[in-house]
């Protein structure tokens, strides 16, 4: 166990970036607006909101370092819009959400977005099952991906289409030790999500 913790600590040190001014502590015990103020969640422990955002309607939290665990919230993504910021709109445009999509199309959308936006060269959708997000029909899916020269990561996401807009939240962590360690913290957090 100590060796695994040490590996995680080394990973954190190796990938740490300088603190950014907009990172802030998220206190436990009260509802917090996330995903461009389209959802609220009520954390039962302290989290950290990162200044960096993957897209204009997204935000990212971590418990103790983005390299070790990260939760992403994206809300009210409209038809014709990508999940994330374009990285190379001309050469590699990101796929767009469409109101004609079924919930089962969302994992494909996420996979294709990750391949371009995050350079995830290896990515698989491992499973998908029905779920609920604040009472709305939703999909919960699990995936595995590796960015270039990085460790393998597992992810679990929950997505819903409400009012012709896409809402999704995900949790990701290195598959060795870290993913399982914080999985329940993420699930407790996700269970508190409410539409605003």
């Amino acid at each position, binding site marked *: 166990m100590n060796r695994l913790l040490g590996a995680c600590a080394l990973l954190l040190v190796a990938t740490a970036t300088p603190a950014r001014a907009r990172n802030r502590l998220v206190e436990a015990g009260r509802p917090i607006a996330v995903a461009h103020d389209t959802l609220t969640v009520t954390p039962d422990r302290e989290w950290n909101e990162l200044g960096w955002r993957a897209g204009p309607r997204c935000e990212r939290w971590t418990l103790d370092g983005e390299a070790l665990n990260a939760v992403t919230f994206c809300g009210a993504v409209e038809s014709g819009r990508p999940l994330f910021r374009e990285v190379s709109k001309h050469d590699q445009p990101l*796929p767009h959400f*469409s109101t*004609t*999509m*079924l*919930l*089962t*199309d969302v*994992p*494909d959308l996420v996979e*294709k977005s990750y391949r371009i936006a995050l350079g995830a060269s290896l990515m698989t*959708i*491992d*499973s*998908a*099952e*029905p779920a609920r997000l604040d009472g709305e029909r939703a*999909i919960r*899916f699990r995936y595995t991906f590796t960015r270039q020269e990085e460790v393998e990561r597992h992810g679990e996401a929950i997505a819903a289409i409400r009012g012709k807009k896409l809402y999704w939240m995900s949790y990701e962590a290195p598959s060795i030790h870290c993913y399982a360690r914080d999985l329940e913290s993420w699930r407790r957090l996700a269970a508190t999500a409410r539409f605003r």
Partner: protein
Amino acid sequence: MAQVGWSEDLLFARAELYRQRGYPRDLVAAADFYRQALALDQRHAESHRGLGMALLRGGEAEAGRAELRRYLELAPTAGDAAMVRALVS
């Protein structure tokens, strides 16, 4: 690539590209390629899945569900089986 060289897997891959782009005409083209794949192999489970999804998105709900039911018969333990069952129920 010569027309005679299209295997069910290549037709399936072509159909997936169209379905995932997802414009209305893409869904029609995707359904056509899935059907061509199934003409070569009626037990190609992923083509039944893709055809079902394309038909559902195109508004052909009953035909789409029938294809998804066939997918579940052929691949009952697929990773997305629970989600697909929810779509057809």
